[in-house]
């Protein structure tokens, strides 16, 4: 993969965000991300096919038929194949693995992979309805007004009960603090302007209150409502050459996993993300590496508890010890294994259908030294990056292993 591009993640937190004023629509985001990639690869002529990932433009923006927006990016994309993929918040990841399969199938040498969501078109209480469609609609009636926070609140509640409230909250507060501190280093991040003096203390002090939100999570445990798009190219070695991109400016996809759980069944264990565990191990296995060779991870922290559970799913900590692992700072940017180095879904933002692509762009930036102020040190003995992108409550998961080019 090469030539990644992120728009800013617009929403609460950004100084330029004003919910009362008109904002750019989906056309703007698709175009900016698409053109941002094309400028780095010698133009649209070098693209064979495109994939666009999006979750709910049909409701957030009343717009379907999204592959039709690809030729709008550049006339050079006209009359070329394009496809839209959807797998809830894993739509971006599906955009990537679809592109990877196209390259592996040798139907394309260069695939333009995009992902986006423009969510600030409705108030949060209605956005919750739209996002709830990532669950089984037959469960919507009995669910919480804020459906997904409700689902993950149940997971957090189960974790508190099993492993202790205070201990878990410390891990969750640290997760939030890491997200904010990392986001402050990336100018495109939604929490880039966040100036809270002590994010850890703020998060630790705030207590979950079911009367105002959900029982076991605070708003700081939640990812952002975001408008953003990301793009990157997936290519073969021939494709890379055609685009005139040096290998050192690209990352190699050395393995990936893709798994789906039955959406109509409840998770067997609320304190475990089994699909994430399955897909991430599949990715590591297909890459022929172990987690201790990975230098950085971008995981799907739609809620802080999901970050902690992903740490456990990756085998970095035993069950029930993920919160401690995080609380000890091991996932921080200077920690044992830096996670979500530009803020993740809580700090950078969560444009649902775009998140998977954003994760790949971040890994590409880190492994090629293009992460600016957010750059971490990638040592030679751990040259790999890993992404985990989740749709719904651990239903659809894609996971990709990248290596420095």
């Amino acid at each position, binding site marked *: 993969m090469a030539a990644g591009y992120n728009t800013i993640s617009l929403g609460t937190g950004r100084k330029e965000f004003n919910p009362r004023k008109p904002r750019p629509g989906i056309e703007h985001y698709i175009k900016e991300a698409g053109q941002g990639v094309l400028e780095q690869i010698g133009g649209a002529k070098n693209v064979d096919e495109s994939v666009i990932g999006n979750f709910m433009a049909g409701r957030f923006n009343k717009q379907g038929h999204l592959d039709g927006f690809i030729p709008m990016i550049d006339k050079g994309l006209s009359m070329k194949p394009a496809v839209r993929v959807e797998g809830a918040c894993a739509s971006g990841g599906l955009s990537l693995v679809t592109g990877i399969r196209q390259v592996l199938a040798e139907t394309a040498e260069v695939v333009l992979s995009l992902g986006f969501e423009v969510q600030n078109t409705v*108030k949060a*209480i209605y956005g*919750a*309805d739209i996002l*709830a469609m990532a669950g089984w*609609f037959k469960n*919507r009636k009995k669910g*919480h*007004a804020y459906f997904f926070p409700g689902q993950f609140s149940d997971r957090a509640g189960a974790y508190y009960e099993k492993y202790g409230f205070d201990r878990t909250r410390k891990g969750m507060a640290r997760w939030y603090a890491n997200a904010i501190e990392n986001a402050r280093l990336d100018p495109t991040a939604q929490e880039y302007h966040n100036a809270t003096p002590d994010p850890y203390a703020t998060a630790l002090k705030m207590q979950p209150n079911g009367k105002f939100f959900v029982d076991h999570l605070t708003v700081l445990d939640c990812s952002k409502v975001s408008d953003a798009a990301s793009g990157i190219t997936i290519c073969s070695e021939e494709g890379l050459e055609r685009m005139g991109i040096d290998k050192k400016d690209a990352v190699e996809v050395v393995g990936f996993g893709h798994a789906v759980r039955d959406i109509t069944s409840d998770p067997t264990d609320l304190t475990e993300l089994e699909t994430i565990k399955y897909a991430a191990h599949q990715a590591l296995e297909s890459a022929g590496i172990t987690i201790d060779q990975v230098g950085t991870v971008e995981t799907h922290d739609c809620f802080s508890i999901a970050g902690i559970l992903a740490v456990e799913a990756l085998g970095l900590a035993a069950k029930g010890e993920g919160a401690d692992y995080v609380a000890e700072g091991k996932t921080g940017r200077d920690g044992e294994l830096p996670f979500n180095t530009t803020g993740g879904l809580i700090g950078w933002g969560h444009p649902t259908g775009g998140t998977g692509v954003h994760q790949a762009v971040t890994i590409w930036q880190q492994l090629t030294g293009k992460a600016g102020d957010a750059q971490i040190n990638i040592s030679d003995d751990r040259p790999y990056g890993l992404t985990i992108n989740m749709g719904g409550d651990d239903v659809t998961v894609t996971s990709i292993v990248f290596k420095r080019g």
Partner: protein
Amino acid sequence: MTYNERLQNVAVLGAAGKMGSGILLLTAVHMADLSLQNKDKTYVLYAVDVSDKALTGLMDYLRVQVRKLAEKKTNWLREIYADREDLIENFDIIDEYIFHVLSIVRPVTAVEAAYGSSLVFEAVNENRALKVKLFTQIHENNKNDVWFFTNTSSVPIHLIDEEANLGGSVIGFHFYNPPAVQRLVELIKTDNTKQEVVDFAYDFAKSLKKIIVPSNDFAGFIGNGHFMRDGLHGMKEAEKLAAEKNIPLYQAIYMINKITQEYLIRPMGIFQLMDYVGVDVMQFILNVMNPFVSDEELHSDLLDKMMEQGVKGGQFSSGAQKDGFLKYEKGKPVAVWDVDKQAYVAFDDFKAAADTMLGEIPSTVVPWKATLRMKNKEEFFGKFYNDLKNTETLGAEIAMRYGKRSKAIGEKLVSDNVANNADDVNTVMLTGFYHAYGPINNYFE
């Protein structure tokens, strides 16, 4: 008749007005919530006003406001509608709730609609004769044991009771503007008010999450009793300042407005507040109150002049401020009315000179907003006003005098038995006028 039964048939008179629409909104939502919990009962709320146009506007206002309220209690609504299998998403549930609330409200122009009501809220003009006429008519034609809740902010309740021959079925239930937001309600009972009416009023206020302050039945009650005199003092101070310093009155108005906002640390200056209430409303209330006081003259020639010149303040239906003593741009005052030339003079034309005359304000001052979450308010105000006392500037001198006058007004409300105690006066000014400290304090001694 139980609390619930009393609320099954209600009318709001003057429902499309500034206060009436807020009262209607709160009552409609409360009745809708009761009806959702008592599904076998029918609830009806008549919104009575004089024009169909205003009532159409009222229904638009209701639709928007009920949505906002519903969005804040979606969890509760999901529980209430748990048995409605057709209502799944928040979208569906909130829409259904809005429809439900609106379906309780019957907008009408005929006062006869209230003949079947058990409870009547009144928020028509501050016109005693009109209030008495409406109450008499409804009372005579109503076969229920109808109770009247008047929102009057100035007319003594016992006079309404006597003149409309209501036999103690009336109580003053005075909301503050805007009723949907302000938590204060002044409750005014008379010697004749039935205890069951009083009990209901307390229960109703509690359901609406309002803070009740009882006021005795003297024209103006506590809120206007303080504000009207405070406003008169502001106008007198401006006239005095203009005469003593030989400056134009408009400049003095600017200076007093600045002192009352910045030195007294209030949400807005006194002239801006008079504009907010409305110059016309203020004059009207003073006219209602004045005949009932013997030891002072509640009247202002300056107000009369403003009215003659047609400069009235008040608000547009959108809630935006109309020009009055001050002219507003995007809600902020930018110019002041010159009664001699009958034109606005921009602050910029004289601000520098006026501010220099007032002198430096002690550096320990903070804006009103910063005091809202202050934990050590008493300590802060004690220190700041001590600093001000030791400041020899014109601004400090006028501010100290103003603070003392404000306290004297508050104390007189207690000694005249309008308020039962100093705490009630302070609560009204804190919650109804959002002052940062009550007028009865020791800061200005």
